């Protein structure tokens, strides 16, 4: 490396460093970016304000009974589908990593199928499952017509949950593989069985890797439930469509729906932050200071982190 000064001045740096005044960078780009963004936002807001949108109607429908029940169905679908997705996903991930080749292959086949076809197609498939299996149960003992139990909501839960399990299993598998093998060995050396080592030592550590993508997928699921409107499940978008097909207030009802989605996603983001923090125990340095929520806390001065 050259030891010559990089500036245009050729005067040597003196020995008394304290005599210099330090001039900080101005970060002009930040201000330019902020101004441009503000202008763009303003124009978008103005477009919405000037457009033929009846804002009073938006406010009115925001708490309409059918919209609220539709929103509850959306939340219900999200929770049940994610619960199925996570429980089944962990099971499939553990199966995939099992020594038993048949078990491992079954898990592979599951992921191959459910990840390889569109979720929309799977929803339609479950909705029409009665064509393939007209009756369910054990013949002679307990049976019934499939059409009677596979309602649009049940079909949506099956379709979304089973599809999610395929994705979750891959996330969980990656998380399990990210945990050092020595952890499992140490647990086994202490007399833990393979299963209790997995449950109490490996999985809790894998959680740190698993949770951020699961959080994202929960948020994704909240929005994917809107596909269930295609098979007639009465979630929020479906309810909104029912209303605007009658009164033609299309944009107003879509805005109402968007507000509810944004609200739910915001709440989920906060929950995600706290769950990740919990599973980051022992790895404080890696989780502290990330995420929008943390920054908001810092700004509001409510952060418990020491500065």
């Amino acid at each position, binding site marked *: 490396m050259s030891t010559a000064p990089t500036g245009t001045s050729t005067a040597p740096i003196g020995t008394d460093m304290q005599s210099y005044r330090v001039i900080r960078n101005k970060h002009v780009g930040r201000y330019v970016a902020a101004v441009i963004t503000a202008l763009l936002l303003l124009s978008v807001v103005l477009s919405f304000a000037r457009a033929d949108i009846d804002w009073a109607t938006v406010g009115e429908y925001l708490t309409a009974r059918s919209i609220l029940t539709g929103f509850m169905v959306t939340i219900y679908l999200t929770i049940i589908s994610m619960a199925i997705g996570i429980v089944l996903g962990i099971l499939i991930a553990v199966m995939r990593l099992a020594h038993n080749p048949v078990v491992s292959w079954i898990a592979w086949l599951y992921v191959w199928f459910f990840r390889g076809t569109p979720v929309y197609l799977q929803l339609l498939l479950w909705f029409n499952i009665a064509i393939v299996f007209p009756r369910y149960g054990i013949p002679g003992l307990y049976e019934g017509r499939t059409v009677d139990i596979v309602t649009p909501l049940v079909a949506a839960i099956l379709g979304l949950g089973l599809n999610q399990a395929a994705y979750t299993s891959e996330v969980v598998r990656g998380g399990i593989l990210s945990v050092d093998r020595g952890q499992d060995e140490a647990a086994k*050396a*202490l*007399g833990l069985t*393979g299963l209790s080592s997995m449950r109490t030592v490996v999985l809790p*550590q894998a959680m740190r890797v698993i949770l951020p993508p699961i959080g994202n997928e929960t948020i994704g699921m909240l929005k994917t439930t809107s596909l269930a409107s295609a098979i007639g499940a009465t979630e929020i978008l479906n309810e909104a469509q029912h209303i605007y097909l009658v009164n033609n207030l299309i944009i107003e009802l879509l805005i109402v729906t968007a507000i509810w989605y944004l609200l739910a996603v915001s709440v989920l983001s906060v929950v995600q932050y706290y769950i990740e923090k919990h599973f980051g125990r022992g790895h404080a340095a890696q989780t502290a200071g990330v995420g929008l929520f943390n920054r908001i806390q810092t700004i509001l001065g409510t952060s418990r982190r020491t500065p």
Partner: protein
Amino acid sequence: MTTTDSATTTDPLVRLEKIRKSYGANEVLRGIDLEISAGEVVCILGPSGSGKSTLLRCINYIEKPTSGFVIVDDQVIGFRKSPRSHGALRELKDQEVARQRRAMGMVFQRFNLFPHMTVQENITHAPRLVKRVATKKARERALELLGTVGLRDRAGAYPGQLSGGQQQRVAIARALAMDPALMLFDEPTSALDPELVGDVLEVMKDLARQGLTMIVVTHEIGFAREVADRVVFMDNGEIIEQGPPREVIDAPQHERTRAFLSRVL
């Protein structure tokens, strides 16, 4: 834990019979026979790649030997005598092997503490889960063990907040919490900064003095000379020679032992 000075009892605590281990065509252990009495401290020396660590891992069955048997406290590890067909050994299930492993504590080169648990939880975890020890009792015992390794005040810390030497001492306490009849140490000081080695060795010397049966894979020749009842020198998957430290270390009979010692001393 065993009583002191029982090295002269008739039945060995550990008996290894013709242990062989290969990974594909690569034979790492080539028929190891070894007997260790209760209360004995055995140090295994040898160049890296000689199979020392693999042997240790075979003893507690983290690694399954390709052939041969490990007998600890009259139990064939990984097998049980079949009651139906005389002279047959039946392979044990995962849970049953886990039960057998309780007799052996193991300390790893890289500590392998559970990073998501506090120091105290690391120590109480297995006793509570495996031996169903009451939480309160397990905690008291953990503090007591932490006292013996000089870390009583760090019970609430996470492993990531400790130095390597402290982590290894916690790992020793964790293994002792299961009251093993035998302790296995796999290069316990190899991953430590030089100034932290002493504390860990000091704890191990204490355990040896208390009469705990120990098998120690190590590069610390000084420790072996001072603490070991017997030194086993391994090379290329075989035991080359063994005996008291003053014979094997100070007056080695075999050329390979001499070559190794001249490199490390």
